[in-house]
């Protein structure tokens, strides 16, 4: 009954939330599925579930709920397409790293992302697109913290991403 009593106000809040989060959810879904149509369907399906639970999640963290639902939906329902991407053979990295050629660099990274295993890819998206901590990734994906750390580290290595150490970061920050 609480949902009923706050129906219209709750709907307005949901629409505001959905508009604000829709683009990022679709991008995440695209990164997870590699297919634009599946991405739209997954993002829409995630929002359907968020709306169905809006009375319960609206006062908590609806965005966290949405990304968890999205990740689980894709893991559960689109497992096969994700597995099709999984391979140890990464695409060739552009030889000359042209700073001006951002699109080429992005395209390679997205292609390389598709080559990760589903769990690696999901951790990478949750950790670095949604920018949430490894602890939160572990909680939202129901994985152990050690597993998340391991998946993240292995995936970044496959992507040939060098992560600056805290010391490097501090030095870098000090020179700016």
């Amino acid at each position, binding site marked *: *009954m609480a*949902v*009923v*009593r*706050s*129906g*219209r*106000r*709750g*709907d*307005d809040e*949901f*629409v505001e939330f*959905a*508009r604000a989060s*829709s*683009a990022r959810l*679709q*991008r995440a879904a*695209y*990164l997870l599925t590699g297919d*634009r149509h599946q*991405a*739209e369907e997954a*993002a*829409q399906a995630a*929002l*359907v*579930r*968020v*709306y*169905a*639970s*809006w009375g319960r999640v609206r006062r908590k963290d609806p965005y966290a709920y949405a990304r968890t639902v999205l990740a689980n939906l894709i893991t559960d329902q689109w497992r096969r397409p994700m597995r099709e991407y999984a391979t140890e053979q990464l695409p060739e990295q552009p030889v000359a790293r042209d700073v001006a050629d*951002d*699109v080429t*660099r*992005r*395209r390679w*990274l*997205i292609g390389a*992302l598709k080559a990760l295993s589903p769990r690696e890819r999901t951790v*990478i*998206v949750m950790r*670095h*697109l949604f*920018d949430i901590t490894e602890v939160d990734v572990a909680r939202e994906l129901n994985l152990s913290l050690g597993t998340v750390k391991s998946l993240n580290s292995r995936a*970044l290595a496959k*992507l*040939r*991403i*060098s*992560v*600056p150490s805290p010391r490097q970061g501090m030095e870098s920050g000090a020179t700016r």
Partner: protein
Amino acid sequence: MNDLDDLKDAMHSPPDFEPRELDLGAVMIQGGRLRRRRRLAVGATSAAAVLVLLVGGGQLVRAGGNRPDGGERAAASATATAPGSAGPAGGVQGDVISTGLTAPGGEPMVLWFQPLSGTKLPAIGLVAGRRAAGGALAADVISNDAEGEDRTPGFHAAQAPMMVDDRPTPAFGYFVGDPVKITVEANGRRVTARLARWSDDPSVVAFWFDPAEVKPDATLKKLTAYGKNGEPLPGAGVSFAVG
């Protein structure tokens, strides 16, 4: 910018992908249905599974022409007191039914049938709403069977009264058959419904209870329809969908 920044940048703006505007109307309709299905799955003991989508007045349907709202108690033999309206596609099917009730804001409370678009749903649902000044219809609650046929004899889409944005909505639904009286026990007291035949199909009789007599959160039992000789008609005892 380091490699990790490159990755984040690429993920935030993946080439060859541009997010589209999602159909939030469809999202809310499907989400509402899912919510109802979950509630039914948890608590339904009703013989007639009912799916109710709360609209909460957010959807305004323009009713055409001037339409007097009679407000009198409609007999089962009577058709709806208000003439039909041609709302937008998917909006109003047949005549808008005047309930004779008034919302706290002074707006007449009305019912209307609405065609449903879901492939697995019955063809019609019944909407409880209000007529705003100027003739626009504001929907509060849509009730429809979640499965089965919508024209089988007996009760359909029975929905318990509730509060929507601090406004009471009536217990309502429809009966397929030829009832002259429909009653329910509200907190142990027998209350008689108001009835109106649907203009599109006279075998369909909408019923509703005055929220002053059947209040939200009332315990409702023994919903029963009676024929012209006072005999109970088949389908008695169905439960109301709640929330």
